[in-house]
């Protein structure tokens, strides 16, 4: 379950439709209620089909609103979410007032309880997961091109609308299935968190999807384990929290985009700049002499030029200068480097 969410979530995140999951999971409610009203059974599959239909309806209405009117997607999402959910609640309360209805348990869908799943449901989920996987592989190229350059895909003659609908439908299916496990509210996190975490580690779609699937699956497993080990802990929230830990970890520690490394790079750049400043000043002095390695007093450097004992030591370490007592002299290597530094800056200014 976690892995399928992760995979499809990658697409949602990259398409800037992250909250679609949230909206659809709410929009599925009236479908469940109507399916129950019509059939009068609590058969999981029937209810799921109802949820699927109303989820799809919600998803396509959202697309319609953003396409045809000037309302923005966030408004459309919020609108559909709340209206469908409200309507669902209306139906649910209406059902509860009906005589002889074995209505109890319908609201289980709202908050989900993985522990109540039967083996049959698990098999059902597994098969849907593998179908999704197959379709994903089949249409891999199309999905990818649509994601990053929809116009290009159109000029190549792909049927954009079809692919678009395909992706949306799969997201809806995943959500509807996930409802049983983690519940309406937490579904969106299941969809988003693994993908957002995976995004931090890679720029390649394929790797990202795999990673997201892995993150999703492991947060599912770990979350379930934690919730099983303690009583009174419902599964859904724990899974979400585990996924959130993954996200925070990725945000901070990912090598290329993470906050930690960004900060380190930032500090490093600043230090480099200071060193370069000192070196440039030295270069100016050394330029005036015939012998570039002519020694000068350390004293003529002051704080303003970025001079500290440490920075001098660092420059010496890089063999740009030699320090002897209270005198310093430039090495040819340092002279060249400083000269080029100057040129580079000049070029950039032009």
């Amino acid at each position: 379950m976690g892995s399928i969410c992760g995979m499809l979530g990658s697409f949602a995140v990259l398409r800037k439709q992250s909250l679609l999951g949230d909206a659809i999971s709410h929009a599925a409610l009236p479908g469940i209620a109507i399916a129950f009203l019509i059939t009068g059974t609590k058969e999981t599959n029937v209810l799921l089909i109802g949820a699927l239909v109303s989820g799809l309806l919600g998803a396509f209405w959202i697309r319609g609103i953003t396409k045809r009117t000037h309302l923005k997607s966030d408004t459309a999402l919020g609108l559909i979410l709340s209206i469908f959910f409200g309507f669902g609640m209306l139906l649910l309360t209406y059902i509860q007032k009906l005589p002889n209805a074995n209505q109890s348990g319908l609201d289980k869908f709202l908050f989900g309880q993985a522990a109540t799943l039967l083996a049959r449901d698990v098999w059902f989920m597994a098969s849907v997961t593998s179908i999704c996987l197959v379709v994903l592989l089949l249409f891999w190229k199309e999905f990818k091109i649509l994601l990053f350059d929809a116009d290009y895909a159109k000029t190549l003659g792909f049927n954009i609308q079809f692919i678009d609908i395909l992706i949306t439908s799969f997201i809806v299916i995943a959500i509807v299935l996930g409802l049983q496990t983690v519940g309406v509210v937490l579904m969106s996190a299941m969809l988003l968190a693994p993908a957002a975490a995976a995004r931090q580690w890679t720029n390649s779609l394929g790797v990202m999807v795999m990673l997201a699937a892995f993150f999703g699956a492991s947060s599912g497993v770990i979350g379930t384990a934690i919730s099983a080990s303690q009583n009174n802990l419902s599964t859904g929230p724990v899974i979400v929290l585990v996924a959130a830990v993954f996200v925070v970890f990725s945000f901070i520690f990912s090598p290329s985009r993470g906050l930690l490394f960004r900060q380190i790079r930032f500090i490093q750049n600043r230090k480099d700049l200071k060193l370069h400043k000192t070196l440039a000043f030295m270069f100016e002095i050394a330029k005036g002499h015939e012998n570039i390695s002519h020694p000068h007093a350390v004293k003529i450097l002051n704080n303003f030029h970025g001079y500290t004992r440490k920075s001098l030591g660092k420059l010496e370490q890089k063999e740009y200068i030699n320090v002897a007592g209270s005198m310093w002299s430039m090495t040819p290597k340092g002279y060249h480097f400083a000269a080029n530094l100057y040129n580079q800056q000049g070029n950039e200014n032009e």
Partner: protein
Amino acid sequence: MSSAQIEIQLIACIVAIACAIPGTFLVLRKMALISDAISHSILPGLVLGFFITHDLNSPILIFMAALSGVVTVVLVEFIQKTKLVKEDTAIGLVFPVLFSIGVIMIAKNANDVHLDTDAILLGELAFAPFDRFLVDGSDLGPKSLWIIGTILLITIGLLFAFFKELKISTFDAGLATALGFSPIMIHYGLMSVASITIVGSFDAVGAILVVALMIAPAATAYLLTDNLKKMLGLSVVFGVFSAISGYWLAHWLDASISGSMTTVLGIVFLTVYLFAPKRGLISVLYRNKQQQIEVSLLTFLLHLNNHQEISERHINHLNEHINWRRVKSKSVLDLALKNNMIVIEKSIISLTDKGKNFTDKAIDYIITNDHSKIESIKEDFFLFRG
């Protein structure tokens, strides 16, 4: 109508108004989903407040809840500022986490208390009148009426005080900064008002309805007008309308009031979405079609202008040359005839003076691509006004 019924409707109306005002700005600022996020992430704040006071009715609860709403906003902004993910993803990450924390805190520590997620998400308006506000033993009306009424008064007061600032910073944040207003201050001010309103209202109507009441009236009004003041007024009207009719619908069906209010809001939106004069789905489709025909008309007239030969100007020739279907050629011909741009003699079409004039101007416009040219075409020929 009993007094309880009147009170319920009064509360519903006031909630609707109190939500519609900040909602309008949220929709305009493209932050509609923040309201959804806030309404969920209030939960941990409520639970914490409850741990502190052990009293479900203490004002600290509301304060803590509003605080956690603001914390949500700050967190979302923080994640967004790191540029690691987009804003919507940031929202989607923050609120489920906060909500889960809330759920777990309830499950671990307060299982026996009446603080279940159902009550928070759905609220129950019907019980609102039974929670009276008593001062020295005298009955001053339902408690939630007082709470939400105060919030409404504050909101309206702030709205009048900062209307100009809100307006400028909503539509042109850069200009607002240049003029010396602080958009950030206004942003957080708005967010605080929104989160206090959500907290105050959800007690009465539940979290989901709050979101619906914030977004739906504003979105509906936005389809109808571009004027901020009109939009505010309209969204208040829609909110109140759905509050009252929603109540009666619920009364009739014997179902949840907040659910039926949302449903009415949905129906109102759907109606406007389909039938709004300028932005509605139907009028948009109609206009697209109209524009298509007008462009075809232009093509057709240019074609006529280029060909003097009789054979090229025969009615039946159109179908094969420009490759239009029969229906389309007919509607184009009709439009041209109606505008006196062509005359048809014995199935031969020729341009009138007016048609010729129009074609010349159109060619001029196409060649120069100068926008002032098309303005005069619009005025002279009543075309291309879509």
